[in-house]
């Protein structure tokens, strides 16, 4: 592992050890083969307590909704297929309208965001607007009608799934200079998002000045195309933490977890200078090593409480890190003789007791925590 930028004395990060004690044991309880096309995303529903054990996957032109039952049983609840066979979905997220009806929001190669009303099993809306593929969609946890999408067209867009409005476009003079691969809402500061991509940077954006437009989007009754969509051209912070593609970033409180293709997840603190927006320093606090994780488009996931993060690697292994301890503790290392294919994304259940992984070869793996183990 090369470190291109020498770390100054007194700024060294704490690096987690891969040989630390295992705290939890997981074992495989199920494995599904969902077609032959790669599965790029799997995600639990964290916005509706009725469906905490429901998850969605995407791969090829399919969106599928499953449920985790007792004893490793997985039930198929719904299945959707795009009539365009060339569509390849890359990302999926749960959202809902203001009445709480559950939506599944998916996007991919075609650049069209599909909003599926899982409550009525119908397509609710299709958002056309992105100029190229969509690499990630995330939902605002406090206002789950708002979703952001990260696209190859170098922009991040904020949408209101309830009214179908594109509220803001984060692109322009200070925007990303290559594909945007990942985006995430700040958990409590509703104005903030962080995005990262192929220009090797992580950018933090604020929509505080544009919040009136967000509010307006909820009451908009005219055609969505007539909405005065605004460009947010300048981020409040640009971090050069990585020297290669940054393919996943998540907020951890006010810190940011991000990963590149350097076999590690990095936790860092953005120190924004208020007087000079855009400038600032990133203080790298901790590193969570993930061996054999040097290809891009591998995304990690956290449980609801951000206690742990799970990430797959190129060889089908999963590493579960305790996020908030210092130094970081490796909770578990999951491997199975038949799991050899790269794991594109994992999903941790609400309490972290179930870990799902979706793979390049189109398989879904379910791991359950072993409760009776003596630890």
């Amino acid at each position, binding site marked *: 592992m090369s470190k291109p930028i020498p770390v100054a004395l007194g700024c060294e990060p704490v690096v987690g050890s891969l040989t630390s004690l295992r705290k939890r044991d997981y074992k495989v309880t*199920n494995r599904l083969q969902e077609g032959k096309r790669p599965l790029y995303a799997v995600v639990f529903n964290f916005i509706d307590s009725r469906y905490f054990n429901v998850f969605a996957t995407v791969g090829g032109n399919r969106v599928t*909704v499953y449920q985790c039952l007792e004893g490793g049983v997985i*039930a198929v609840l719904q299945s959707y297929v795009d009539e*365009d066979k060339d569509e390849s979905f890359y990302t999926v997220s749960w959202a809902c309208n203001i009445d709480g009806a559950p939506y599944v929001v998916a996007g991919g190669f075609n650049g069209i965001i599909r909003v599926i009303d899982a409550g009525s099993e119908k397509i609710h809306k299709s958002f056309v607007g992105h100029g190229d593929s969509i690499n990630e969609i995330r939902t605002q946890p406090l206002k789950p009608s708002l979703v952001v999408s990260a696209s190859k067209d170098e922009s991040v867009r904020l949408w209101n799934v309830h009214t179908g409005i594109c509220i803001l476009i984060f692109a322009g003079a200070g925007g990303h200079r290559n594909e945007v691969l990942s985006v995430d809402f700040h958990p409590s500061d509703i104005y903030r998002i962080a995005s990262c991509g192929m220009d090797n940077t992580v950018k933090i954006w604020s929509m505080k000045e544009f919040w009136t437009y967000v509010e307006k989007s909820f009451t908009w009754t005219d055609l969505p195309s007539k909405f005065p969509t605004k460009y947010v051209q300048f981020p409040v912070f640009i971090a050069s933490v990585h020297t290669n593609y940054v393919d996943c970033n998540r907020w951890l409180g006010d810190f940011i977890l991000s990963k590149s293709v350097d076999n590690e997840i990095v936790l860092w603190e953005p120190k924004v200078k208020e007087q000079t927006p855009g400038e600032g320093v990133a203080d790298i606090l901790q590193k969570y090593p993930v061996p054999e994780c040097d*290809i891009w488009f591998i995304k990690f996931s956290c449980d609801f409480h951000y206690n742990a993060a799970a990430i797959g690697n190129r060889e089908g292994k999963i590493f579960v890190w305790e996020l908030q301890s*210092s130094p970081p503790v490796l909770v578990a290392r999951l491997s199975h003789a038949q799991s050899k294919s790269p794991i594109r994304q994992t999903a941790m259940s609400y309490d972290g007791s179930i870990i799902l992984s979706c793979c*390049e070869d189109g398989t879904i793996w379910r791991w359950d925590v072993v409760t009776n183990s003596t630890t």
Partner: protein
Amino acid sequence: MVSKAADSAIKLRKSHGQPANDAVGTLSSKIDQLEKQIQAERIVSIKEKLLRNGKKVQCHVSEVVSAISKRDSLHRQEDRISQMLSSRIGHPLFKFNAFSQGSSDKDLINSLDVIFTTSIKMPYVERLPPYTSWIFLDRNQRMAEDQSVVGRRRIYYDQHGSEALICSDSEEELTEPEEDKHEFTDTEDRILWMAFEQYGLTEEVLDTVSESVGGTRQEIQDRYKSLKEKNMGRQDQQSEGSGDYESQIGISLEESLSTALDSFDNLFCRRCMMFDCRLHGCSQPLIYPSEKQPVWLEHEEDRKPCSDQCFLKLKAEKTSSDPRCSHGNKTTTTEEGVLTFAPSCAAEPENHSSATTLVEERCNSMSTTPFPTEVAVCGGLNLNVPVTESLGKRKTIDQSDDDLTLLIDDSQSSCKKQKKITDTDVVTAINENTSNKSILSGSTSHDEHGNVGDGTKDGMAEAEFNEPSNFMNEHVEGMQSLSEWKPLEKELYLKGIEMFGRNSCLITRNLLSGLKTCMEVATYMHAGGASMPYRSNVPPSSLRNDSGKTDAECTDQEMPTRARLIRKRGKTRKFKYSWKSAGHPSIWKRIADGKNQSCKQYTPCGCQSMCGKQCPCLHNGTCCEKYCGCSKSCKNRFRGCHCAKSQCRSRQCPCFAAGRECDPDVCRNCWVSCGDGSLGEPPKRGDGQCGNMRLLLRQQQRILLAKSDVAGWGAFLKNPVNKNDYLGEYTGELISHREADKRGKIYDRANSSFLFDLNDQFVLDAYRKGDKLKFANHSSNPNCYAKVMLVAGDHRVGIFAKEHIEASEELFYDYRYGPDQAPAWARKPESSKRDESAAPQGRAKKHQSH
């Protein structure tokens, strides 16, 4: 975790193994100790940070939990009739249990195929043609420095092979990054401080520190010094408190004019008449016209006292006793001025159309009270031209008072007259205020002064201002004391002389309002203010020389300012590469006439009077323009056209022939009117109007963006147009050719290029910034053509109709690709050979290599 720093410290100790000097030995161990301590502190601080952050996370999570439960209660009350998802939970499509088949081996898991019998179809939605997010530009911008791709690493992946590639193409990337100055961190400071405080500043200590901390000995020494000063300074600050506060805010009267105008000179673009011009940038070199605009003159008999404190009142008292001391003599000067001025203006109109001075004067008018007002009125009054006279006469006004070729308009001048009166009133009011207040308590009078001067003195102690206000009182009473003129006021006065001649009313009103009264200015003028000898019977020409001289002084003073303005260059990190160039020509659009004659970028020259061999314009092969410093009679100047009725739309017009738009400031008959004709002015658009100012006036067509009939996006026309009609401007970022080479290679990979050759220095790039015309496609049989036009000194790309085009037709023009430059879709399709020379890079891959 053992860090490198600790390692090096150990090595360091070993290298110093022989205890040549005990003190140094203990020092290195002490440094070692300190380093360890610092690392330990770091670990602790990270722990604390995470702990604090963990609490925040908990907080966030609980917020989300409460939001969820709120929603839950919301739909608990509702009917769940249409809740298919809930009902599916009761009746799933399938259930998969890996162990139901009774596999005994715990480690062997059966793979269960999910079979979709009942899939819900998502109806087909056509995808958009791909595009990269772009922002609209209505005028070209120069590239911001941080947008450069030169020397920046860019990683590609090949969509088909799914392999990541590095494009590293040029030799200059191999250049070593410039030797960085060592930047000291807080911890290094600590080590440094500890070492020198405890062991003294000796050679050995210096060596030891430099080895453990890094940086040269000199740097360390300097750092120590500055640390020492900082520590001292901190103590001093605490004892003294905030000292020199006033000077930091607003404009101090003690400053020179150039200092006061520093930010103005830096940020105001004199070519575009706006602040923060994105095209010409800030900190442009200041060009001062060698020709001064003649001061405008007024019959003194016509003048009314400008205020209570007007010198005319003073004069009325004094005329009988001592005419020489008063301004009486000025009347003759003024009259002479008018007499000599008028004929010369008629004989040699060009001489006076000093468009160059216009720039400066407008600037000045920006900083003070509305100057154009005065000029407009002057044109009407002094030259005695009836407002509704013929066109030809009107032009004379245009050229003699040169300002406002655009603005001068009968209706306007009349309305300006009104405005002038109100302005005067206002100023009078202010002046009265000042004089009245000066008799009042000190603090109020200074408040007035403060408001005009810098307006930031609110919360200051009253006592502080007693002195200056007394000062002002003295001024009103004993006006002879010249010493009280602050440097800034003196310079403003000189500028005023330059602009208005020896007219104290105007100088006071426009430049010194609130600072000095008219009477004070007059007295100052009398006493030979600022070494200007009082001349009663000199011809006006020498008066002009005089002002020329003062200008020379000003320029001298400005010189150091200019030197100061050199911008700090942002540091860009450079990477080293060893891969060879991708080596295929990039796709650039070229000028439609295809002659490949590259236009030369114009940069105003600062030549005084005539341009000689040293003139950069002459050297560069461009004409001198109105923004140059040289005189209008400069032989290198482009003199515009004199076309009468041709509308300047053919090559008979010298402007048109030279690929330039006509310039109302330069051409004789090209003008713009903005009235509606109700006041007798010529109509806005008429037969006689110049047709070669369409980019300047933005007389463009409505362009529509839609899916092309040929490839990707296309630009379409809303309304029908005729041959040679102007459709719009192709805008974009101005980038250097070097940058364009780099970007071209990047864009070629995406197979879409929006580069457009502009001139010898710049290429237009509309990739991320531009307008809809960037989507017009290439055709070898186009209906449009692109033409680079010189508009007010800038090259701009106009798109024109090559033939009659119907409404909603798609627009095409010939990109004029160089040989072998056409993109794949413009040539015959062929296999993608282009990645051959680029070396694969093994780091970032979306997929595993086999």
